[in-house]
């Protein structure tokens, strides 16, 4: 089971059994986004509270396998309290772990933003913290979709929150 040990490291099992930041935030002021994985029927709702360019709260609601639930939990812990710029780096780091092409733009970062450029910063292994547990997923290609569901849904929720803030006046 050596490959499996990689996939289901203790951190993953811990976040699966005791997921962080579960539930939904009141909307408004929070923004909600739903995500589906048609492959396995998993459904997720991510709530995001964006205040002054900081994600002050995030909550995850939904059903999923251990990879999808723990990835969501790990993500929520990693992004909570972080700025948009920091989160962009975290998302890039995750995508690079999943071998997702770097030219894929992050929705909540403007196309002209330097962090959406071709050679963006990513976290070093030392900076990753528990997120490093997700590294094993890439060896199991069919599970990458499980791991990415929460991240994609979160990115769209954040984009929505940002648009709602920008809408009244032009972005700074």
């Amino acid at each position: 089971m050596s490959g499996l040990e990689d996939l289901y490291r203790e951190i993953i099992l811990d976040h699966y059994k005791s997921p962080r930041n579960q539930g939904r935030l009141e909307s408004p002021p929070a923004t909600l986004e739903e995500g589906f994985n048609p492959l396995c029927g998993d459904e997720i709702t991510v709530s995001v509270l964006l205040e002054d360019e900081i994600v002050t709260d995030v909550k995850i609601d939904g059903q999923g396998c251990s990879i999808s639930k723990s990835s969501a939990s790990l993500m929520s812990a990693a992004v909570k309290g972080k700025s948009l710029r920091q989160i962009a780096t975290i998302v890039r780091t995750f995508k690079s772990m999943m071998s997702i092409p770097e030219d894929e733009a992050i929705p909540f970062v403007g196309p002209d933003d330097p962090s959406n450029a071709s050679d963006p910063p990513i976290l070093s292994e030392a900076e990753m913290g528990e997120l490093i547990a997700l590294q094993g997923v890439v060896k199991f290609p069919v599970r990458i979709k499980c791991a990415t569901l929460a991240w994609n849904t979160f990115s769209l929720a954040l984009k929505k929150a940002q648009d709602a803030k920008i809408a009244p006046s032009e972005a700074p």
Partner: protein
Amino acid sequence: MAQVSTTLTSSELTPTSAIRREDFPIFNEVEQKPFVYLDSASSSQRPLVVLEAMDRYYRSTHANVHRGVYRIAEEATALYERARTHLGNFIGAPDPSREIVFTKNATEAANLFVQGLGRRRLDATSTVLLTHLEHHANLVPWMILKEQLGFAIRYIPLTDDGRLDLSDLDQLLDGVSLVGVSLASNVLGTINPVAAIAERAHLAGALVFGDGAQFVPHNTTNVVELGIDALCITGHKMLGPTGIGALWARHELLEEMQPFLGGGEMIADVRLDGFTPNVIPYKFEAGTPPIAEAVGWECALSYLESIGMEKIRHHEVELTRYALSALEEGLGDAITIFGPRDPESRGAVISFELKEIHPHDVSQLLDQEGVCVRAGHHCAKPLMRQLGVAATARASLYLYNGHEDVDALVGALQKCQAFFR
């Protein structure tokens, strides 16, 4: 454990008598040990004779069908048409050489029927009756046509043990013109009482389309005895190749149906102002058909017949009986098995849930033990919602599976439970 039938001798019908694993190269050649294949409801494996028949065809006989007047083109045509007639006979079609339309798979056959006949028979005032346990292939084609024509769709509900609830059938059939029902469920294994449904549907003036994808590979099939009007099937679930399926429909319905795919072969004449369709069944076979696949499928039919569908069914019933009790004994409260408990009224398809372990995780851990099962919604999302689950794990058995495969499944599930405890 197994009670043998009295119609055949016990040596012919021990539970393992249909196992001919040595006929299937994959069990020796797959680069995985152990290899416990429990996903035949998704796609079966194929015996060497089928592979050889297709190889021989490509090596010695291939030419396009219905075109050339040279020798091998005629031979290829003869083989292709022989496959058609054989398949017609295999399912008891009254007019086997005219009533089988080859398609890409059962899904395409369903789409062909729904579009072909639905456009003739349905309008905004019509009603179609389906069931809650249909595969997406017998749901979405109707929904697509519904969006275009605006008819109503009703559904036969399920009982708690996963059978069709026919208590209000006559009411449900009131005003219905077409009924779509699977002969056997790909999730619950339930074998539906299609003959009874067809009888009552006909009394109500409705036609019945059967989805035979999960039934025909495992049971003796006779469309006349079933009393249905059309049936879709697929080759790769019954030891044949992928890329070929078929629609059977009574020939007068095929005559009535609109062409579905346009192109070569399906026409009798083409002018700049229009076309005249070919006669049935060619009217529905646009373009070069899957010829080698038809040759392979025919060989698979012969292989199945050489064993006997009755014997295959008996083997599966006994193996399912064994599996249901082994799973419950081995996993106790930790496992929930969906569908009817009586092996006689179901196919060898067992969907289950392990307590607090997602089917994706179950399937991944089973894979580590060499056990191949399917995890997911099995293209039956409405049914998943009925069962109150997002997904299930599903083990499905066929003639090459035996007790040892079931034992491997139970052992792997126990390991899986221990891993997540």
